[in-house]
């Protein structure tokens, strides 16, 4: 009798999703009431209700993607920690690498310009060819003003 009851208890426990399973999904959601606090660590009553809702859905056999989809349909995509990669949301994904690339480009250009400006400023025209090129350029530019 005892053996049966203990098996029954284990079987009932197995049907219930664990806190870890609930928190794995909750970690990927943000409640709009408590901005910037992930659902798994949020202590408000609203967040506790959301976690209970995740638990219910897991127990009903929903998978994490279905649960996240439900929450985004119900409360908007802003509840997702990772915005979906479509439409205007692409900007959130594209902007950081674009800004990084542009930033590096500007830094490299700046370094390049410093390196190439210094010798030019210090070294006067040395060779005959340089002098000829310089004279030609000067003539050319003066001709534009005449």
């Amino acid at each position, binding site marked *: 009798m005892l053996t049966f009851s203990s098996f029954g208890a284990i079987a009932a426990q197995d049907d219930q999703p664990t806190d870890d399973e609930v928190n794995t999904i909750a970690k990927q959601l943000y409640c*709009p009431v408590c901005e910037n606090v992930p659902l798994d660590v949020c202590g*408000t009553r*609203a967040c506790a*209700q959301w976690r209970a809702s995740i638990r219910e859905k897991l127990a009903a056999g929903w998978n994490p993607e279905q649960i996240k989809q439900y929450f985004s349909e*119900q409360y*908007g995509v802003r509840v997702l920690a990772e915005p979906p990669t479509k439409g205007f949301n692409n900007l959130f994904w594209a*902007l950081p690498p674009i800004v990084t690339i*542009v930033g590096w480009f500007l830094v490299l250009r700046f370094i390049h310009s410093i390196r190439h400006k210094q010798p030019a400023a210090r070294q006067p025209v040395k060779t005959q060819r340089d002098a000829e090129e310089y004279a030609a*350029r000067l003539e*050319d530019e003066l001709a534009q003003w005449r």
Partner: protein
Amino acid sequence: MEVTQTTSGNSVTRLEARRTAQRRWVHLAVWGLFLALMMLMGIKLYRVKLGPVSAGTAPNFTLTTFAGESHTLSDYTGQIIVINFWASWCAPCALEAADLEQAWRDYRKRGVMFLGIDYVDTESEALAYLEKWNVTYPNGPDLRTAISQAYRIKGVPETYIIGQDGVIVGSIIGPIDYTKLSATLDKLLNQ
């Protein structure tokens, strides 16, 4: 010799002109991107600073109630409408629930419409709340928080009173009581 020099001079000048133009485009693109980002942030901050909608035409919306009925605000033009944002997890909302229900029962005969908008809530808890307070006026979830965003609510509870012409005549942040609500409704009905 002179011709060669002029040709080489021209190509150098052209190369420099091209480089200058390229540099100008890069600068323009970087500044454009920066300004676009600043504008986006500015718009967002401006909206936050504006606070809840408190005047002008009430933003239109369609509310699908928990019972599945559809209510569009513009369909009630010519009637006074009370819109109440609430949530089951919100303790101050419970303070006004009975007063709102009483006002609905008293004023519906005089053509006043009440709409309850459930903000960021779970359906089971919301239904339990409505049952607990015996709320009978139409109530539904704020799907994707579209309505609360249109009204720029700061939290719950918030109540908006809309006149017969569709213009917001009052907004109350925090719990509302029967006396305050009935005074506003009487004033509007007697106009």
